């Protein structure tokens, strides 16, 4: 699925050059569930941005199913994200003035799915994450755990093959954290490829494998299964 070859990403901040990714080579096969771990500033989010087609690396090549991701135009990458990649964010990133159902409809709206089909699919997904009775609530009227479940439902809106998750449990209490991770595990069992950035070892343990980034260099960690 993903093939990264000698990918480097450097930033210049206050006159200093920072190597967020340093000659990083990585393969993520189809239906993998990989956790990217590492301390703050180790390049985890940069790697996620590169995988999402949102940050062109300074050097190196990123391929998705044999196609160079950054050989595509901006519009083509936006379309690819919309069709094939779902995102989960730490702060959920729901649009505050839209209802739960409308938030789930956004990716379908962007891919011009007919309105009726959008609504039916959104209700079906909200039901799947246990929020069938909260479809017309706005984010402010939902708990943190419920908001993350709306975000998870939104992730599945266009039935993506890949889910990129950025600290998906960072804002959740232990109980809702477990609930969110069980959903991600379910999505993986559906056949999706999941790349998850996390600080939390317990969250990382839900993945099939973990990769630690140290100064922008990936290192495979010994696998430890989730409870």
């Amino acid at each position: 699925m993903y093939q990264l070859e000698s990918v480097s990403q450097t930033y210049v901040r206050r006159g200093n050059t920072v190597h967020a990714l340093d000659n990083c080579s990585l393969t993520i096969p189809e239906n993998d569930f990989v956790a990217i771990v590492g301390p703050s500033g180790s390049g985890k989010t940069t790697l996620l941005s590169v995988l999402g087609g949102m940050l062109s690396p300074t050097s190196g090549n990123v391929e998705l199913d044999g196609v160079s991701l950054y050989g595509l135009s901006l519009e083509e990458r936006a379309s690819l994200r919309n069709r094939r990649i779902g995102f989960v964010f730490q702060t959920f990133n729901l649009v505050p003035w839209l209802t739960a159902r409308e938030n789930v409809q956004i990716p379908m709206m962007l891919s011009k799915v007919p309105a009726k089909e959008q609504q039916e699919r959104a209700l079906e997904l909200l039901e799947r994450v246990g929020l069938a009775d909260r479809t017309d609530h706005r984010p402010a009227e939902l708990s943190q755990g419920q908001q993350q479940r709306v975000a998870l439902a939104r992730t599945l809106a266009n039935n993506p093959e890949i889910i990129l998750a950025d600290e998906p449990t960072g804002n959740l209490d232990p109980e809702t954290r477990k609930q969110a991770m069980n959903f991600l595990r379910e999505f993986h069992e559906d056949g999706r490829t999941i790349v998850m950035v996390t600080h939390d070892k317990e969250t990382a343990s839900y993945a099939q494998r973990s990769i630690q980034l140290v100064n922008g260099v990936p290192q495979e960690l010994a696998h430890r299964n989730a409870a």
Partner: protein
Amino acid sequence: MKLRHLILKEVWQRPTPMLTSLIAVTLGVMALVAIQNITIYSEDRINSDMESLGANVLVMPPEVTLQDYYAADLHGRTMPEEYVTRLALAQLPGVQNLAPKLCVETTVNSREVTLTGILPKNEFQKKSAWQGLGMLTNAVGSDRGCCATPATLDADNSPESLAHTRTIQELGERELILGSDVAAQLNAKVGKKLTLFDEKFNVIAVLPATGTIDDSRMFAHLHSVQDLSGAGPVVNVIEIMACCDDAAGDLISDLSAELPETRVITIAQVVETQVAVNGLMSRLSWVFFAILLLVAAASIASVMYANVTERRKEIGTLMALGATRGFVTSLFLGKALLLGIMGGIGGFIAGTILAIVLGPSLLGIQVSPIPQLFLIGILSATAVALAASYLPARRAAGLDPCLVFNDA
């Protein structure tokens, strides 16, 4: 859900930031609509006043000086009637009607009266038929489209129309129209026969009182007066009804060039002043409009920039979910379009109401909505809103979608 749903929902849920801009746009359009509306109806009123005055340009023999507008034909000097034909054939822009007159003194029932010869409009039509010309079959000059409002001279063909338009459609050779005072003095009514120059004339109309010298006159066909008085084919004056703008502009020089042997007099001061006031109001309305729309543009740009900054994370999320730059641009320009349309409609309604309220009280004119101002208002407001939002929209579309991530 579609793009427009997203725009409407955001505006509906968070209307406050847009209110200032909306008010500014509305005020700009309102100022334009109100002032233009009053100006246009004021011009109509002036035209109507001119029409009721009957004529606003006089062509007279060169040695005559104008002492009294309503007595301009009582000086005893004459000029050839042929001048009327020359003027009619010249088809000068702005000339709406020609009314040649010849005044003679005569006696009726031992009373001295002034008999005024007038040329009915059907005489112009006869002339055009003789000469194979079609140009005079309509009201003279009115087919040239020179006036802001079309002349309504043909609306009333009754003899009484002479009282307010100073022209008449038809008048027989032995027919007579009496002013109100002379009719009372002679105890004459419609249908009565009166003897003038030893000829019997049939009274076909008695004019309503106008408060002018016309009340003490008798009117007969110009050619009858010429024949019976022995004056020959001459007239004392040619009254011209002209459009205000033209009367204040090139028409006088055009008339002088056409008839250099005559003296052309206009009530130019009145016309010029009224036209100038209208022109000033009209120009001022555009100045107010421009200033207020500039304020609105600044307000819109400022609010839009703030909106982009405030919604960075939301925009980044949309881009991460697959929104293109075009979609994000449309999101903001769509909002601007909505603002322009709402401001345009609101401004038109408020401006029209203001004009309807102020028109009668300030200028004594009745005002109605003008659809063209609706179009101008809405198009200008929309164009300004879109132009002011263009850069903020481009900035939004250029945001880095990576900012959606936690530590970005």
